[in-house]
């Protein structure tokens, strides 16, 4: 009875709530990066709608690049304006955080996407029969593979320029994802960047069946995982009565001003908190491709158009880990002793499974997919360090890793034969003889993956392991070292294949790319070496960006 009464009182109380809702106050300047990107995306749609097909490609390319560059400039401006450090705070009524990690990650994402756009726009790889240069996307996504419609589209020289707005939307979501300061924003951002990716995956020009299959898998599993995440959000909301990070953190930390009976009732029930936390974690782990939520990764990476794969592999990881960091460091620090062991486990299995399964891979893209899983494990090792060092090391690793990945996948786009990209490893035999330069660059990326000194991979690995060791995660370091040893094996295998085995007669040809892809690869190599030889400046950046706002 008393309970019912309280419920009734709640009802009446919330009845006259509406006029109490304050008008939201949005700091547009501080959200400008996201706004610019999303705005450009909308523009892009309009371009698709109104510009003649011929002129769409250049316009879209220009628009996208400008937008991303501008957004990056905005990020830099904000950082310069001290929002990364002193003036860091939660903007948009606590929905979006503007602080060091957010800005650093947004900057990284924007740069990565900018480079990715180059590979998106590459049109010289497929010397098309009908004379018109084409990129790696389907002439007409909706057309049935090999069907009449597609042939017409190909003959007409259609290209799916929608990929650019799609990319921009995805980027927009990714920008918000690591900055999201409440669970709702987190969820929305997740969907905003996932949905365009699902579509992009389906748009390969060659091997369309694989492409579509990968899209379906990605979509279903993605939706599945986001449902889990959402349920987790629900439980956390139920536990804390709010979805803002700070609010939940306060409740978890047990420092709330007024504790009404209901809240007391729910907060008493840790199950809500723990299960909710676990489910949200799972949603994020899925995005970063950690074991056992990794299984979509190889299939999707292999099926999706390679530029998209590169973009996903690089940017999604950055965004996902950003969100993960924020969640663990802002929302759940009170529960450190609960989630740390769990994350330990996840990190260990991720490193080992990724490395071990990669050993027997026969497809370059799958190989890279598994290696990305292993790397997710390494990064997790830095995540569980639970120290500012840990954060900055993870940030650095993400920056280093994303460019290496992008570069590697860009190289993959160049090695082609009649069936499009020749991704089967056996085709790569003797590549070093055919075109030493390409092989050499790819070797550089592989060495970076393997964490050989003087490459960014080593600096990053050292940073996270160091943080982990200082965070008292020595065993993790050992496992990490072991799995790096295993990983080294298959990277080396590819190098052997490229340089020490005789080239086949029917081997693939290496396409001579336009400046776009070349510059993408060049940037990748440059970043790899610079971060390997003189990482101090970037370590400083990451170090300054190591503190989350609450």
């Amino acid at each position, binding site marked *: 009875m008393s309970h019912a009464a309280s419920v009734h009182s709640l009802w009446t109380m919330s009845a006259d709530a509406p006029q109490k809702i304050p008008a939201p106050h949005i700091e547009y300047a501080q959200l400008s990066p996201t706004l610019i990107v999303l705005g450009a995306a909308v523009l892009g749609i309009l371009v698709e709608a109104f510009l003649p097909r011929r002129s769409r490609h250049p316009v879209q390319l220009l628009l996208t690049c400008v937008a991303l560059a501008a957004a990056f400039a905005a990020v830099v401006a904000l950082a310069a304006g001290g929002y990364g450090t002193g003036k860091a705070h939660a903007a948009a009524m606590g929905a979006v955080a503007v602080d060091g990690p957010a800005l650093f990650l947004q900057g990284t994402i924007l740069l990565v996407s900018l480079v990715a756009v180059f590979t998106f726009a590459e049109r010289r790889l497929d010397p098309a029969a009908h004379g018109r240069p084409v990129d790696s996307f389907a002439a007409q996504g909706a057309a049935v593979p090999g069907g009449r419609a597609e042939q017409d589209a190909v003959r007409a020289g259609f290209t799916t320029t929608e990929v650019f707005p799609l990319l921009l939307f995805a980027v927009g979501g990714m920008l918000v994802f690591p900055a999201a300061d409440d669970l709702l924003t987190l969820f929305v951002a997740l*969907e905003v960047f996932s*949905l365009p990716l699902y579509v992009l995956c*389906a748009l390969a020009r060659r091997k369309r069946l694989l492409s*579509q299959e990968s899209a379906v898998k990605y979509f*279903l599993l993605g*939706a*599945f995982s986001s449902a889990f995440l959402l*349920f987790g959000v*629900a439980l956390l909301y139920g536990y804390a009565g709010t*979805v803002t990070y700070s609010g939940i953190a306060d409740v978890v930390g047990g420092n709330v001003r007024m504790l009404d009976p209901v809240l007391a009732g729910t907060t008493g029930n840790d199950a809500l908190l723990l299960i909710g936390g676990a489910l949200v974690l799972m949603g994020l782990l899925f995005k970063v491709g950690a074991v056992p939520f990794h299984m979509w990764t190889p299939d999707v990476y292999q099926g999706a158009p390679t530029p998209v794969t590169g973009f996903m592999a690089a940017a999604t990881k950055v965004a996902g880990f950003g969100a993960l960091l924020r969640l663990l460091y802002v929302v759940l620090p009170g529960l450190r002793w609960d989630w740390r062991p769990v994350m330990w486990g996840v990190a260990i299995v991720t490193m080992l499974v990724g490395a071990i399964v990669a050993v027997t891979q026969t497809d370059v893209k799958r190989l890279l997919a598994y290696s990305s899983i292993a790397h997710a494990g390494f990064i997790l090792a830095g995540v569980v360090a639970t120290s500012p060092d840990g954060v900055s090391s993870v940030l650095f690793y993400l920056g280093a890793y994303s460019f290496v990945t992008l570069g590697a996948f860009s190289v993959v786009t160049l090695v082609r034969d009649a069936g499009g990209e020749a991704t089967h490893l056996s085709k790569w035999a003797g590549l070093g003889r055919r075109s030493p330069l390409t092989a050499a660059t790819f070797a550089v990326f592989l060495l970076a993956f393997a964490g050989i000194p003087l490459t960014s991979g080593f600096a990053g690995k050292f940073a996270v392991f160091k943080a982990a060791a200082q965070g008292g995660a020595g065993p993790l370091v050992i496992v990490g070292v072991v799995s790096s040893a295993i990983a080294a094996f298959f990277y080396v295998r590819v190098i052997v294949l490229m340089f020490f085995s005789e080239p086949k007669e029917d081997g693939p040809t290496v396409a001579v790319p336009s400046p776009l892809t070349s510059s993408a690869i060049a940037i990748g190599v440059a970043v790899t070496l610079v971060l390997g030889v003189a990482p101090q400046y970037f370590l400083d950046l990451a170090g300054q960006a190591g503190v989350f706002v609450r």
Partner: protein
Amino acid sequence: MNPVNYLYLAALLFTIGAAGVLIRRNAIVIFMCVELMLNACNLAFVTFARLHGNLDGQIIAFFTMVVAAAEVVVGLAIIVTIFRSRHSASVDDAGLLKL
């Protein structure tokens, strides 16, 4: 009636949805199961909103619906394409990518 029961219902629906995803072959059905899971979440949200007596939960529920709608658009589009190229919507047929 005790609102907590709604939570149990939500959990139940969520589990049913999840089970559906695991069991059913047809992509459309699987997708519907996912939708079911999302709606289970919605139910949980509103229940908690009710419990806590603030509107956040209810607002989130609206957001969720919108997101779900968006998912439907993209999802159905993808599923339809693959259906047209494969003449089957069974996810088990789509097994080219493996190992």
